[in-house]
Every structure is written in structure tokens, then in C-alpha cells.
């Protein structure tokens, strides 16, 4: 089963009721609807012979409907028909318009079409009314224009008639101002003109334009030179006739500015200036091709794709080499991605608007997709097994580190999401406590809106006034703030921060710590309070290893005698430790929830890890968990507050000190709660592991 696709073919030819439901989600845009409406009108007119053409042309036959050029070629099968049509059409044109011998005028130099053979050229046309939009005439019209220009008379010596105004330097520079002022000047004497843009696919994409004025003079411009000619009246008339814009057939194209170059803009082609951005090789195993991409188009996330955490490869574009150095072995078995963490997500678009997506999983599974961005239906996705090769992860981690190192905190938390944070009391920087999501948002906002200035390494610091911990997905930043607004991050990186940041910290700290002040209950005597604290402390001490055991699948939790632990090998699926006496993960979850309240811990034991079911038995894949090397002690200090069925305590965790290194000791205040059961027993509520 393909996890990334679902086949909805069953909805084809659905019943009326289902159809009407689907129709509510009809995706056609207004533009598409307009195209289809115009098409329905056109077919209707053809069938009723109610032609709107003013030029006397009449469509013959009612069944022949030729798809406009801009619709492209839908199927290869249609190619034969189209080729046949071109040949037949060409012959028809020849029959109806026998080639006339050029009229030789002895007074002026008459020459054959000086702009070369246009047969392999595509055309786009604009008029004074349509500018800056262009449209692409049908094949038939293009052929007619081509033929007229090819067979017409071009007088290269024409000096009379319209002249380019002296005060306007005509160039092919793409500037609406220039074009508009030029047109205005032209308008005063020559209200009508049209511009035909040519692109020759057989001649290295040669581009040029012809502007035809109402006196039949024409200006040729290829971006390097301009020449003027006088066309004969019949040729000019044929060109005009075939260059008419019909809103019911043609859609308008609005060119995107390509560095001021009109020709490139009309054809949507990148210019040299645009191409100046340095490009790098990107290897795609799906296509087995290497494409050139810019560093800023290569974006990645350490972990699952999260828009807030996206970075570009600009800090070290050489990282892309790792894709060509990886051994992309197609996966031979279906990966279980649900239980598999993501190490790196990478996305990129090349200059041809092809989209590449790489997702590297913890297990060594790598999923790579390739698609044309405009047509993401045809996504080619391959799953690879890159084994234990961590080079992609380590290479991107290097870019991640490099990017972050160069950034000040405001930039760091502009490109990464602040996931957790702690703040000290405003009167005691030695004790910190957690911020909730809303407060994290306030802090992140304060960090990103403050001004941060780097200071010399030998900066002297005054008294410490605040201590902060801020983490994104990968990093933890210990920020110490001293008098004079000087700051260190992780013990170095001296900086100065603007006053508004300190003001914001005062407000956030007050808000956070106010909530943690213990409530005094008159009904609770001192001894009763001490008794509750003692009972809670016993539970607290006991529950920490139990919680760690349950959530990591530790065998010691289930075996009294660890020598009797049963291991089982599952071949490619690795091995597991048999959990004795249970047949499903639900049973383990039930055991866990006997001790830990569902209010906070309902989802702590997942369906995939560390336990798995096999052959009616449950196994665990116990994973080691690191410990907090600075941890010294933890204690419940006081009752923070009580509700009808819950008592919340303040806990203090002590860290640092001489036993480890020179790190200054610090204290973290957390919450621990017990949920009182109807029978008076307690289950563990809020819990934060201290080590």
C-alpha cells in the first residue's frame, strides 16, 4: 500500500448524489471557467455558423473544432492528427494563395524578408490596447503571418512616414515607462500599431520583435540593433488581420519583468543578470540526474518539515555534494515510517521549476520525490535505504550550526521556532521556571523585536540580573543578562540588547512567577501541610524511575529477576524483550495508568515504541536515556495550590556545583501534582523528570 496516495477511482461515474457532493468542491478557477465558457461560445458559434469574425473568414464544417495553441498538446496520440493538419493546412494555403512574384520597384531597394525564415518561430503579439499583456495566436494565424512576412515586400530605404521621436531613445529595455512614453509619442501620430515578438526554437532561441505601424512601416529590434522597413500594403493587411485579438479564443499573458529585458520578459526566460546567482549541483536519485540550483532555493529543516524552522543552504552550499556521495539503494521492504523519526527534510526547486523533496529518516530510510511544480500530479517518489550512513544528517547539521552561529538571537528565533523557555525571578537570577505556550510567544516576540549588538570578546560584565533558557528544535541557549544590558549566550558571544527587551523580561517574569506563589489555605494546618508534602515526596521519588521504566520499556519493570529476561530475534525486524504476562500494549497502558493519571499521561505510551505486538505477545525495544550530568538533588518544597481533586506542589531541582565542573549552580522550579482518586488514593499528575 502506498502511504502517500489514495486511489479515489471509485468516485468515477458516481451516483447522482455523490456527484453533487463532489461538485461542491469543483476546483476550476474563475480563469479556467472563463476559458471553458469562451470555448463553449466558440463551438456554439461555429456550429450555428454565427461567426464573429469581422474579417469575412468563415469556419467551414460544424464538427471540426481546432483546439487553440495555448491549450498545448494533450496527448501524444493527438500528434499525428496535428501533423496531418499542418500538412493539409499548408497545402490549402498554398492552393488559395499562390506565391506572387515580388514586385520589383526600380526606385527603391526591395528585398525578401530580411529577418530570415520564421517557420520555426513562435509568436506572441501585443497591441497598444493590450500592453503590457501579450497573447499567443493560434498555429493557423502564426502560419498566415509567417507566410505574409516571408512573401511580402520589404523596402529598406523607407525614410518617410513615421519616425521614432528623437527625444525617446528606443531600446528593447523592459520598462513600462519607456514603452508607455514611446507609445504615447507614437499615438499622437499613429494610433494603431501592433508588436509581434518572435522566438526561434531552431536558432538557439533567437528572439526579436517587429512593431507594425498604421502606415505599414515596421521596426525590427533584436535587442542589439533596430532597423526600419516599409511593408507593402497587402502584407501589412494580412499580418494585421491574423494578429487580431479575440478575447473568446486567446488568454492574455502578463509578462513578468526579467531584469528590464522586454524580449526575455515576454517569453518568460531568465536573463543573464538573473542567472548570475551562483548555482550548485544537486543530485536527484529518482531521475539519476544532476541539476543546477541556487543555494537560496535549497531549504531544509533538521527534523520534520516545519515552516518556522526552515533554513536555506546559503551558509554552506557545498553541503549539496552529500547527495551525490550517498549510496542510494532502492529500499527492498516497506518501511514503517510511523515509528520512525525524521532527521532531515530538504526541499528545492530548480530553474526549470522542478521540485525535489528529500526526507531522511532515523532508520536509514530516505524518501525522495521529484515533480514538475506546475504539475504535481505526476510526482515520482522513490524510497531508498541509505543504511547507517549519517553523512546527510551530519552535513546539514553543520550548515544548521553554521547558520545559527552567525545569527543574533533575534534572527535565530526568526528562522526557528522557540519550543521551550525558562525565565528567572526578577529578584533572583539563580532560580528559573518554565513558561507556558503563551508566555513563550511573548518571549519570542520580545527577542525578535529587540535590537542585538555584538560586543568585543573581552567585554566586562556587571551583576547578573536575569537568566533565561530558550530552546528551538535542536539547540538550547543559556542566556545570562547583566546590568548595562550586556548579555552572554552559552557562556560567550558577548552582546548588548536594547532596553525594550529588559522591560519585556520584567513583565514576563512577573507574570510567570506570580502564578507559582503558594496559596495560603486557612483550612490547612501546618502539620497537615507537612503531612501532604511528605506523602507527595514519597510518591514523587518512587514515580520517577517507574515513569522512566514504563516509557522506555525497561525490562527491570517487568522482571523481578533480570537474569530471566527473554530476548527474541525477529530477523530484519530487529529483536525485542518479551514482556511477560501481557498480550497487548493496551494492557501495559492500563498498568501505567493505574499509577499515572490519564489527565496528563493518556498518550505517554504510544502504539509503536518502545512496545510492539507480535504473535499475540508484547515485546519492548528498550532505549537508553541519558541523564542530566549537572543534577544534584530534587525536593518538593511547598503546596502551590489545590483544586477539588488535585494538589499541585512546587518542586525545586538543584543543578551544578563543584562536583561536576566550574558551572555555577542553579535551581529550577517545576510543578508536581497528584490527582486525588474517589477512594482517596493518589495518581501522579504533572511530572517533570529532574534527571
Amino acid at each position, binding site marked *: 500500500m502506498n502511504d502517500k496516495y489514495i*486511489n479515489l477511482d471509485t468516485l468515477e461515474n458516481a451516483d447522482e448524489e455523490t456527484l453533487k457532493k463532489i461538485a*461542491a*468542491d469543483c476546483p476550476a478557477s474563475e480563469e479556467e471557467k472563463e476559458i471553458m465558457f469562451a470555448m463553449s461560445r466558440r463551438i456554439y458559434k461555429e456550429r450555428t455558423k454565427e461567426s464573429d469574425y469581422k474579417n469575412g473568414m468563415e469556419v467551414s464544417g460544424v464538427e471540426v473544432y481546432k483546439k487553440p495553441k495555448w491549450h498545448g498538446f494533450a496527448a501524444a496520440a493527438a500528434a499525428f492528427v496535428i501533423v496531418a493538419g499542418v500538412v493539409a493546412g499548408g497545402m490549402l494555403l498554398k492552393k488559395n494563395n499562390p506565391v506572387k512574384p515580388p514586385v520589383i520597384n526600380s526606385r527603391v531597394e526591395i528585398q525578401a524578408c530580411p529577418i530570415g525564415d520564421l517557420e520555426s518561430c513562435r509568436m506572441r503579439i501585443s497591441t497598444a490596447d493590450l500592453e503590457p499583456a501579450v497573447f499567443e495566436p493560434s498555429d493557423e494565424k502564426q502560419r498566415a503571418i509567417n507566410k505574409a512576412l516571408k512573401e511580402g515586400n520589404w523596402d529598406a530605404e523607407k525614410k518617410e512616414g513615421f519616425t521614432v521621436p528623437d527625444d525617446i531613445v528606443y531600446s528593447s529595455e523592459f520598462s513600462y515607462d519607456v514603452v508607455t512614453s514611446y507609445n504615447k509619442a507614437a499615438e499622437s501620430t499613429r494610433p494603431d500599431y501592433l508588436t509581434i515578438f518572435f522566438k526561434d526554437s531552431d536558432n538557439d532561441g533567437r528572439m526579436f520583435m517587429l512593431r507594425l505601424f498604421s502606415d505599414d512601416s515596421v521596426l525590427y529590434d533584436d535587442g542589439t540593433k533596430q532597423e526600419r522597413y516599409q511593408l507593402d500594403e497587402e502584407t501589412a493587411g494580412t499580418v494585421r488581420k491574423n494578429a487580431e485579438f479575440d478575447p473568446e479564443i486567446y488568454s492574455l499573458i502578463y509578462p513578468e519583468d526579467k531584469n528590464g529585458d522586454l524580449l526575455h520578459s515576454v517569453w518568460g526566460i531568465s536573463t543573464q543578470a538573473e542567472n548570475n546567482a551562483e548555482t550548485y549541483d544537486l543530485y536527484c536519485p529518482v531521475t539519476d540526474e544532476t541539476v543546477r540550483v541556487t543555494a537560496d532555493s535549497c531549504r531544509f529543516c533538521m527534523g520534520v518539515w516545519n515552516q518556522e524552522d526552515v533554513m536555506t543552504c546559503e551558509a554552506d552550499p557545498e553541503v549539496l555534494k552529500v547527495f551525490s556521495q550517498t549510496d542510494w539503494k532502492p529500499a527492498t521492504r516497506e518501511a514503517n515510517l510511523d515509528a520512525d523519526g525524521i532527521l532531515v527534510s530538504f526541499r528545492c526547486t530548480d530553474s526549470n521549476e522542478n521540485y525535489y523533496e528529500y526526507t531522511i529518516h532515523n532508520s536509514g530510510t530516505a524518501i525522495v520525490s521529484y515533480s514538475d511544480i506546475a504539475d504535481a500530479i505526476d510526482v515520482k517518489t522513490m524510497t531508498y535505504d541509505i543504511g547507517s550512513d549519517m553523512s546527510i544528517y551530519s552535513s546539514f547539521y553543520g550548515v544548521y550550526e553554521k547558520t545559527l552561529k552567525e545569527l543574533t538571537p533575534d534572527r535565530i528565533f526568526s528562522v526557528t521556532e522557540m519550543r521551550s523557555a525558562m525565565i528567572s525571578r526578577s529578584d533572583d537570577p539563580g532560580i528559573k521556571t518554565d513558561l507556558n505556550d503563551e508566555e513563550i510567544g511573548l518571549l519570542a516576540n520580545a527577542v525578535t523585536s529587540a535590537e542585538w549588538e555584538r560586543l568585543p570578546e573581552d567585554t566586562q560584565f556587571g551583576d547578573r540580573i536575569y537568566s533565561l533558557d530558550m530552546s528551538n528544535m535542536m539547540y538550547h541557549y543559556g542566556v545570562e543578562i547583566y546590568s548595562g544590558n550586556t548579555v552572554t549566550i552559552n557562556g560567550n558571544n558577548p552582546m548588548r540588547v536594547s532596553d525594550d527587551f529588559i522591560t519585556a523580561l520584567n513583565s514576563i517574569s512577573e507574570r510567570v512567577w506570580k502564578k507559582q506563589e503558594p496559596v495560603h489555605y486557612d483550612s490547612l494546618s501546618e502539620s497537615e501541610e507537612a503531612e501532604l508534602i511528605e506523602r507527595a515526596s514519597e510518591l514523587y521519588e518512587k514515580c520517577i524511575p517507574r515513569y522512566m521504566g514504563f516509557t522506555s520499556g525497561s525490562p527491570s519493570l517487568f522482571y523481578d529477576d533480570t537474569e530471566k529476561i527473554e530476548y527474541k530475534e525477529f530477523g530484519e525486524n530487529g529483536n525485542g524483550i518479551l514482556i511477560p504476562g501481557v498480550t497487548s500494549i493496551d494492557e501495559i497502558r492500563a498498568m501505567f495508568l493505574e499509577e499515572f493519571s490519564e489527565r496528563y499521561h493518556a498518550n505517554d505510551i504510544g502504539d509503536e515504541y518502545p512496545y510492539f505486538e507480535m504473535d499475540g505477545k508484547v515485546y519492548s525495544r528498550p532505549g537508553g536515556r541519558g541523564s542530566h550530568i549537572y543534577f544534584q538533588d530534587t525536593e518538593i518544597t511547598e503546596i502551590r495550590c489545590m483544586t477539588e481533586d488535585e494538589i499541585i506542589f512546587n518542586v525545586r531541582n538543584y543543578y551544578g556545583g563543584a562536583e561536576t565542573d566550574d558551572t555555577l549552580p542553579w535551581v529550577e522550579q517545576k510543578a508536581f501534582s497528584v490527582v486525588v482518586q474517589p477512594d482517596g488514593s493518589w495518581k501522579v499528575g504533572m511530572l517533570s523528570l529532574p534527571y
Partner: protein
Amino acid sequence: MTHNEFRRAAKSSLENAQRMLFSEYFNYVYTIVFSRLRSCAGREDIEECVGDVFADVYMYYDDSRELSGDISGFIGAVARRKAADVYNKLTRHSFGRISIDDEETANIEAPDNTEEAVEKKERNGALMHCIELLGEPDSTIILQKYFFMRSSAEIAELVSLTPEAVRVRCSRALKRLREKLTAMSISI
């Protein structure tokens, strides 16, 4: 839009009348045509077929023959016929042409009383229900992506999200849809 309404509108402007008719039945016609041709035709063929259906309907409305009441059945029949015609041409199974004057036109819909048809209808109903349960914008994203085969960029515009967000939501919604289908024992 009834025949009479069309005629009244056409008195002042035929194009406007046709536009009104088109707007009212476009989604319906497009969906019928798309659902028939999605497996074999490109978007252009589908658009052309939709244009063709409406052209036929306009012509029929020009005719003196009177159609009364809700004409969606008639338009649906034309759309199904035309789509079937294009389908046959593209898959080269048949080159026959179909006229809307055919006697069969009125009876164009597949009979829905066979056991298979009933089963399919129920299954589709349940599938649509599961998709609807995903809520917006996920239900739209799933239908656009896997039925209408629109790109993430196009869907993004439709649901006012970024293409990346669409991809992420789509993958999550797909997972949820699978869970719902499994829970209802529907295999797709």
C-alpha cells in the same frame, strides 16, 4: 434555470443568457466530465469536452422544443454522453458519435438498482462521509489532490495556504482518512 428563464434572458443578450446557464451548471457538468475522463484525458481535453457540452445545450435551447422544470437531468445526460464519447475516442474502443437527439438520451444514467450499483453507491456515500469528517480544509485538499488531481500549488491557492502547508496537511489528512476508512471497514 428553466427554458423560459433562458429565453427571457436571451431576449436582451444571448451571451448573457448563456453565461447564466453556464455559471449555474458549470460545477455539475465539470464534475461529470472530469469523473469520466480523469483516467484517460488531459485537462485540455476535459475543458474542451465541457465547452462542447455547453455548446450543445445552448443549441438545444435555441431550438423550439420546450424543456420544462429542472433541466439538470437533461444537462447531466448530455455531459455523460459527451464524456463517454470522448472517453471512447481516447481509449479507442469506439468511434461512434452520439447525438443528444438520441432516444436513449433521456435514459442515460446508469441504472442504479443493480446490486453492484447499490453497493457502489453505499460505499461512495461512506467514503464521502469519511472525507467530510476530516473537516475543512482537509476534506477539500484530499478531494482536490486525489480526485481532481490538482497540484499542491493550485490547491494552495484554493484554500489560502502555502503549497508546503498543503503537502503537510494532505499527508496528515490522508493518514486520518485511512484510519477512518479502516474503522468503517472500507477498503479503497
